[in-house]
């Protein structure tokens, strides 16, 4: 079994893991008499909530792979929300995304100037950007948005979005005017144990998907391709691994660092524009990023500085966020406790298998706690759901941090000609 798994390519292995996860969700939700855990809408919500986090994380990826720590993602996200909304209102949804990217890129450029050209400590510069961005956004609002009908110093009028797309065959989308059959939908409606659940979840990922979401997810393989298959990517990575080495091979390190950090800002800006788009908010509102830049940073580290990992991290945040919000009666939240227990049991098995005693003890303790809570309660308080995504990521990091490897020269100062 293990060997068979190991033989699979990594994407297929992850599919298997995901399927097992869905199986667990399916079984567990039965106990709490809820269908939210595997509802179509849950997977859609997960996507929506994952996108800005993922984009911020990918932004962090480009920056940190180029050796520049980017704690300023939050500020760039904020710039993205403002510029995204402004662009969308004036020039339409697509322009909003592009202009939002531009806004974030400006933040990235400032970060690059400070860190790359002036050698300022990366954290310091990032914090400065986080402090400055809200002020700039507010100032721009007071100068510009207040002039709009429905706009104010803290918010914009409603923003238009971009279109949605339903995949043909999979979810019954149009193909050149032909209404294709909705295959996944057919299964999902059958009420077959597990099959309907997993098809339902998957259908949520392919039906009525915002084009912006699709672009965001397309950026994951694209980033991986760019990073590991192209010249640009190789040169970018050397900046994060061994910049002087790159310098000696004729690479203009400053240039690539600038690229990396500006792209980083642009991606965070795109994330911001997404938040302000109708997919999430549909307006610009001060404070609406709610710290997602920092969460993106967490996803980056969680994802071991790899696009796929970042996506996994973002989804891991997005799922409980989305499900928690939609969980009006609290049943799903309660069921998630049992999911947590089972996940911790899996960690326990892994730890025992690897003879990692401390991990096993921790997993057993946490799992037991979750189980006791689950069985002694019928609902969980709202605040628990609010913090669940953070707790999950923290716990995952507690078990797996040691296996993370950040780019070697990440955060270190680099100056040309000092090799």
């Amino acid at each position, binding site marked *: 079994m293990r060997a068979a798994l190991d033989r699979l390519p990594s994407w297929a292995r992850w599919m298997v893991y995901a399927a097992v996860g869905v199986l667990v969700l399916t079984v567990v939700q039965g106990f709490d008499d809820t269908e939210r855990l595997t509802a179509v809408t849950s997977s859609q919500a997960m996507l929506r909530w994952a996108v800005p986090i993922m984009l911020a994380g990918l932004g962090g990826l480009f920056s940190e792979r180029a050796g520049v720590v980017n704690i300023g993602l939050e500020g760039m996200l904020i710039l993205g929300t403002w510029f995204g909304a402004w662009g969308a209102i004036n020039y339409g949804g697509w322009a909003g995304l592009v202009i939002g990217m531009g806004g974030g890129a400006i933040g990235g450029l400032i970060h690059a100037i400070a860190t790359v050209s002036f050698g300022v400590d990366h954290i310091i510069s990032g914090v400065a950007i986080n402090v400055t961005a809200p002020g700039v956004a507010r100032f721009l609002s007071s100068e510009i948005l207040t002039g709009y009908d429905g706009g104010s110093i803290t918010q914009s009028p*409603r923003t238009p979005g971009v279109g949605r797309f339903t995949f043909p065959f999979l979810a019954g989308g149009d193909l050149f005017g032909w209404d294709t059959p909705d295959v996944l939908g057919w299964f999902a409606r059958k009420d077959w144990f597990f099959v309907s659940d997993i098809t339902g979840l998957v259908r949520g990922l392919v039906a009525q998907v915002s084009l912006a979401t699709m672009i965001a997810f397309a950026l994951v393989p694209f980033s991986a391709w760019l990073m590991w298959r192209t010249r640009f990517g190789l040169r970018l990575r050397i900046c994060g691994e061994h910049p002087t080495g790159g310098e000696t091979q004729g690479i203009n390190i400053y240039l690539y660092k600038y690229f990396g950090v500006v792209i980083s800002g642009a991606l965070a800006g795109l994330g911001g524009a997404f938040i302000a788009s109708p997919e999430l908010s549909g307006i610009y*509102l001060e404070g609406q990023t709610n710290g997602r830049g920092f969460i993106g940073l967490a996803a980056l580290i969680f994802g071991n500085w790899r696009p796929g990992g970042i996506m996994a991290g973002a989804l891991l945040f997005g799922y409980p966020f989305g499900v928690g919000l*939609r969980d009006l009666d609290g049943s799903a939240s309660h069921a998630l406790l049992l999911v947590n227990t089972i996940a911790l049991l899996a960690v326990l098995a892994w730890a025992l298998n690897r003879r990692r005693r401390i991990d096993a003890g921790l997993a057993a303790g946490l799992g037991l706690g979750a189980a006791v809570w689950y069985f002694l309660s019928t609902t969980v308080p709202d605040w628990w759901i609010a913090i669940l995504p953070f707790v999950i990521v923290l716990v995952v990091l507690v078990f797996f941090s040691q296996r993370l490897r950040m780019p070697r020269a990440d955060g270190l100062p680099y100056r040309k000609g000092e090799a």
Partner: protein
Amino acid sequence: GDDEETETVAEPEPAAAEPEPDPEPEPETTEAPEPEPEPETTEAPEAPEPEMTDISVGLVFDIGGRGDQSFNDSAAAGIERAAAELGITFTEASPEPDGSNRGELLQLAADAHDIVIGVGFLFEGDAAAVGAENPDTRFGVVDSAMLNFGADPVAPYGENIAGLVFAEHEGSFLVGAAAALKSQTGKIGFIGGVANVGGLIERFEAGFNAGARTVNPDIEIIGDYITEAPDFDGFNAPDRAKEIALAMYEEGADIVYHAAGGSGAGLFQAALEQSEATGSKVWAIGVDSDQYHTADAGVRDYILTSMLKRVDVSIFEMIKSVIDGTMQPGPTAYDLSVDGVGYSTSGGFVDDIAGELEALKAQIVSGDIAVPTEP
């Protein structure tokens, strides 16, 4: 034990009326800190006519300030009306994002103005303190009774400090009734911004639920809050409001009411998207202002009605009472009986049930229906 308080709020007089005119710190003029001596005469001009007075008002919004399309904007409307009709002048301010300088702003406003109004109950403590220091300035605080519950007996914080309180539960009762009357599915929803802020938002929920159940005891009501204090993101999270609203609509609710400040935009967006996606129309109910007019034109048609909380009226009246020399210290209640709260009819979506709503309103005003303040 909130019942007594509820009464306090509902009736404009009780605790406020009896307190003896005692502990007023006589203007025992200290030294420097008062910039301009404020002649008593300015405050009680004999001419109540809308002539140009030289009264000036400092309006201090809460974080976010003007432009939230509901609460703060309503306050702004009130002050503008006062400027137009009473001829007062005014300036506006709003505190730092972390809420650190409310007291300073009140003091600054008091330095420069005859009347200072804090928009939001968060000004309560600071207004009490600053009010005591500036006995010649009149203070008004929206959403607070400005009664010192720590004192025995309970008394206003000062002769110069008024509280403008609203019977949100009564207004919410009416929109709850409207929702129940208009609902096709027998399921409606409520979204609160931040839970546990001293039960403030819960009052909206309580009234809404009661109103809905009064007209339809079988109605199913789904309620949810976006965040809990001290996480105030709930007033600033249209994305989360939208997610919750979508879930409610998908559960079968066809009308959702929000008391979530800026997050309401997400509800409207959800109503629009859900209606467009399913082809059957779902509704949202706005809050504080007539959101049919303040919200974006694109979502207007989904706003069934709004629970009106006439902050504008209260502010206007408060300023006027100062000019008239009739200002009441302590709470002045703006309830249904004085049209301090109500519902909007813009769009004409509730015209068909106007009769029932008016009847309910009459019953509340007459006391036949007692609206609870806790869900």
